[in-house]
């Protein structure tokens, strides 16, 4: 079982597929949960403290907007923790809801810089593409150590 970082980092489909094939998804949701359930940090809405932009400095330069650094304070450690990665390109949701296009670019860049197995696929738009999408992800996850083999529950 390996830790697989997913991009988009809060994707339901990717998080589910990674878990389905027997690995641990590294997703934004768990990190947010850690943040909001830390007793000492309690400043709604998102509990971003002055520490976050400082942590983000490890991943983005000081002249980069604080928003990018704040986001990288969460995403950066996720990338460091990852042992494999799945990147979905051209996904319509990563424009808008994912917040910040520059953070997304930086996230993908830092994942690609790491020496880990990476799968890059395009977001499917039809049935055939969806099948290809699932097959590619399935084969990739099975090829990782500890993945579920055929017929395993």
């Amino acid at each position, binding site marked *: 079982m390996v830790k697989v970082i997913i991009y988009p980092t*809060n994707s*339901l489909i990717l*998080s589910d597929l990674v878990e389905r094939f027997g690995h641990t998804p590294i997703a*934004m949701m*768990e990190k947010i949960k850690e*943040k*909001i359930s830390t007793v000492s940090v309690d400043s709604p809405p998102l509990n971003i403290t002055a520490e976050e932009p400082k942590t983000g400095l490890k991943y983005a330069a000081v002249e980069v907007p604080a928003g990018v650094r704040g986001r990288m304070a969460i995403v950066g450690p996720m990338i460091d923790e990852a042992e494999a990665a799945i990147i979905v390109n051209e996904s319509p949701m990563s424009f808008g809801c994912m917040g910040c296009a520059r953070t997304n670019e930086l996230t993908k860049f830092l994942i690609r810089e790491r020496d880990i197995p990476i799968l890059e696929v395009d977001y499917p738009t039809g049935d055939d593409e969806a099948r290809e999408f699932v097959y590619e992800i399935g084969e990739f996850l099975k090829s990782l150590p500890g993945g579920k083999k055929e017929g395993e529950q």
Partner: protein
Amino acid sequence: MSDREEDDVITKLVVISSDSVLPIDAAMKIYESETSIVIKETCFGTMVTGPREAVNRVVKEVVDLDKNHIFVKERGFPPGDERRCRASRGGGPRPGFHYLREEVQMLPTIGKALDDYEKKIPLKETGKKKKLEVKQLEDIIESVL
């Protein structure tokens, strides 16, 4: 409850995209489990909150109802959290809902693909759509001029 146990309380989103299972079926399954967890029925499925071990066990039972058409992800905020709940924010979709809705539209095709993958149906050769090359665009422009 000790701090350690408190830390281990998680929330999972169970999104149902099945022809045979309804959100109420999933909710009933969870009620039957007699575990001390909180569930909330929603338009897309249910949200389950409780100790990690119990939530994982119950969610697995629900997923087993139709495993290729029920999808699960963890959620950061518990249901009804003031920072996310519509009731305390004066209405409107909660942050993150648009993203979920976009993915939910894709789930029937993903479910079908998972069925095919399980049955080992070979992939059809599909021509990949490519972006238009600059040279091709130039040729088109010149042919029209």
